[in-house]
């Protein structure tokens, strides 16, 4: 019983969470947000099968997401016009098929190379499909996209998918299933070898694996799950537009996965939940939200390439060897965090004031910065913010080497335990 709970406890908890979330967050806004998160979590984990598990950076993975969305919308509209009925509940399977077929075809030519070449090929395909949306008007309908009504055909068990809550549970169930499936795939021989090819393709060849085949398979499976997500996206919004196949969507999923952490299964989930939430809340507070997002992304690449999940996971060896090792990290971490916070407050202040001057209220001078009323034409707020930045930068310069030092010390202790 205990081992069963340890093994499957996380999944049971996840299932319960999926079930009760709408009861906890009851507003329409929250429900919309949850639906969006569910769809994008599938897409993000699917994308991470490529980036995190397989080491392939794609700039065009929205193709499979968006094309499955378009096909699903066409299927809905076709059903409304008398085509044979296909249960809406099973649409993700249809989307998965679309994604898989496209993934097999495009993946075959893309995955013959890895690294930068792969990334550029993916960019080429992404731009090609985006350009097609404006050309093949009957299928894509240009910039307007296509509408559909998800309330079609029979109503098994009274499910109409009219109310959003029914759509939520549809997304939740499929998200749950997709999460289990994609997690399980990481634990299969293919999943392990996908990691092996990512870390050391040469060695993988010399233990009998065709690295191109491994990449191709990873690509196809990833496209398949992306397709499932795309069809849920179409059902959720009853609309699909060109941005869903374009670099906008491809970039968004890259941001979510990388900021969350590509090296860990939880990373994409963390990233999606965080970014979707911030995107719909912070965007109301600040014009600069997208700038902050970009800066965070760059900062993650420079200082924490493992993403948020990576920051947690990098402490696993110490935590596994001896929890006391972590305690020594506490003070340096606190100092570094404090300095970063000071730096951040100063930088945010400056950015917000510039936005206020140039975009929000040209000509006006009274604004609230961190709820403090200030005048942007006075020198004081600028001076204060600049001073904060200077203090923050100096603090970071002093504290981060200490962080690195104490972390290295802890790692040395871990290695000593392993060797001894």
């Amino acid at each position: 019983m205990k081992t069963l709970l340890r093994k499957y406890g996380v999944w049971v908890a996840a299932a319960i969470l999926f079930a009760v979330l709408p009861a906890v967050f009851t507003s329409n806004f929250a429900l919309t947000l949850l639906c969006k998160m569910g769809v994008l979590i599938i897409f993000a984990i699917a994308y991470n099968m490529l980036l995190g598990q397989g080491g392939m950076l794609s700039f065009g993975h929205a193709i499979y997401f968006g094309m499955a969305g378009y096909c699903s919308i066409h299927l809905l509209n076709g059903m409304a016009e008398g085509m044979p009925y296909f249960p809406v509940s099973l649409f993700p399977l249809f989307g998965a098929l679309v994604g898989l077929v496209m993934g097999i075809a495009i993946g075959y030519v893309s995955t013959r190379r890895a690294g930068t070449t792969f990334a550029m090929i993916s960019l080429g395909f992404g731009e090609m499909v985006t350009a097609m949306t404006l050309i093949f008007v009957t299928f894509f309908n240009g910039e307007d996209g296509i509408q559909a009504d998800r309330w079609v055909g029979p109503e098994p068990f009274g499910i109409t998918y009219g109310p959003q809550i029914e759509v939520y549970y549809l997304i939740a169930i499929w998200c749950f299933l997709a999460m289990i499936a994609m997690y399980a795939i990481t634990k299969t021989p293919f999943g392990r070898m996908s990691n092996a090819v990512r870390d050391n393709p040469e060695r993988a060849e010399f233990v009998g694996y065709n690295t191109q085949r491994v990449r191709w398979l990873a690509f196809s499976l990833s496209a398949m799950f992306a397709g499932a997500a795309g069809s849920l996206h179409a059902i959720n919004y009853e609309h699909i537009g060109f941005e869903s196949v374009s670099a906008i969507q491809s970039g968004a999923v890259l941001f979510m996965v990388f900021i969350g952490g590509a090296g860990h299964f939880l990373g994409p989930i963390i990233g999606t939940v965080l970014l979707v939430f911030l995107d719909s809340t912070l965007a109301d507070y600040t014009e600069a939200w997208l700038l902050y997002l970009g800066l965070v992304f760059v900062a993650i690449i420079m200082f924490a390439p493992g993403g948020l999940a990576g920051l947690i996971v990098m402490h696993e060896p110490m935590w596994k060897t001896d929890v006391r090792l972590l305690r020594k990290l506490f003070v340096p971490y606190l100092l570094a965090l404090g300095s970063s916070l000071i730096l951040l407050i100063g930088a945010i202040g400056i950015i917000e004031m510039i936005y206020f001057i140039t975009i929000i209220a040209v000509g006006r001078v009274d604004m609230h910065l961190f709820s403090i009323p200030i005048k942007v034409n006075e020198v004081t707020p600028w001076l204060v913010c600049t001073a904060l930045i200077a203090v923050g930068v100096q603090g970071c310069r002093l504290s981060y080497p200490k962080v690195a030092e104490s972390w290295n010390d802890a790692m040395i202790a871990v290695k000593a335990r392993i060797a001894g």
Partner: protein
Amino acid sequence: MDILIFSLFNGILYGMLLFMLSSGLTLIFGMMGVLNFAHASFFMLGAYFAYQISKFVGFWPALIIAPVVVGVIGAIVERYGLRRVHKFGHVAELLFTFGLAYVIEEAVQMIWGKVPVSYHIPEVMNFTLFSLYGLEYSAYRVFMLLVAVSMFVALFFLLTRTRVGLIIQGALTYPNIVASLGHNVPLVFMMVFGLGCALAGLAGVLAGNILGTEPGMAIQLGPIVFVVIVIGGLGSLNGALVASLFIGIMQTTAVSYDVSMNGFLNVIGVQVDFDSAWRMLVDLTVAQISPILPYLLLTLMLIVRPRGLFGVRDV
């Protein structure tokens, strides 16, 4: 005929503009192995800086100052950003420049707003230099062409006649050799990156007032520049020139041709009389599919011959 000549001239002009962008990008890639996603963003910065500077001191000083400023920013980005990411590998570098492109676009919006700024052609150049088949050609366009050509000549001399140029050339062919020559590699990298960005900035100064200076200009041009350097061969300056002209002429001439597959089929005597969804495929004109062509070329080239037309080694 007149349309052909006109679009040919425009194509060459557009091609030379592409070359100003792609020459820097291909140099950077050839030396550092970094595919600079943000290259077109430096182009955009050039245009915005020129707009801002020419407000105070006029166009001509801006023509010099703006590219220098862009180059300095590029060098700073290399020194404090890219160099740090270098140890994580080329994919991380690619991601870094991708994020940088995003940040620059947002920063430009923050400072200059989301709508185009009114960056105009200088008054002295705003007259018709000559007319061809009744189509007028402004002096500014000719000036642009001249600057682009002299930039190519200057670059050519820099690479073949100077010491730094020879080091750069050596690094293009044998990336590992420069370190063993005892040169300060990080410094050379920083200079090349800065120079490449400055060239992109110069292109921005020249083209911003014709193409329009707005936050979306980087995203519009960025992928096309990638196409150019991949087709020309990464790291090859000659390849970049040929491919720039090729893509430039292709883009501008294809747009003006209303030939479709159906039309072609009619000429050779085949009548398409079915009325299905496939009908739209044969009815597509060259002008309509021209936006796809560059990317089709890009992917085909990468799949079939990743070293491009003139490249010496694979991506």
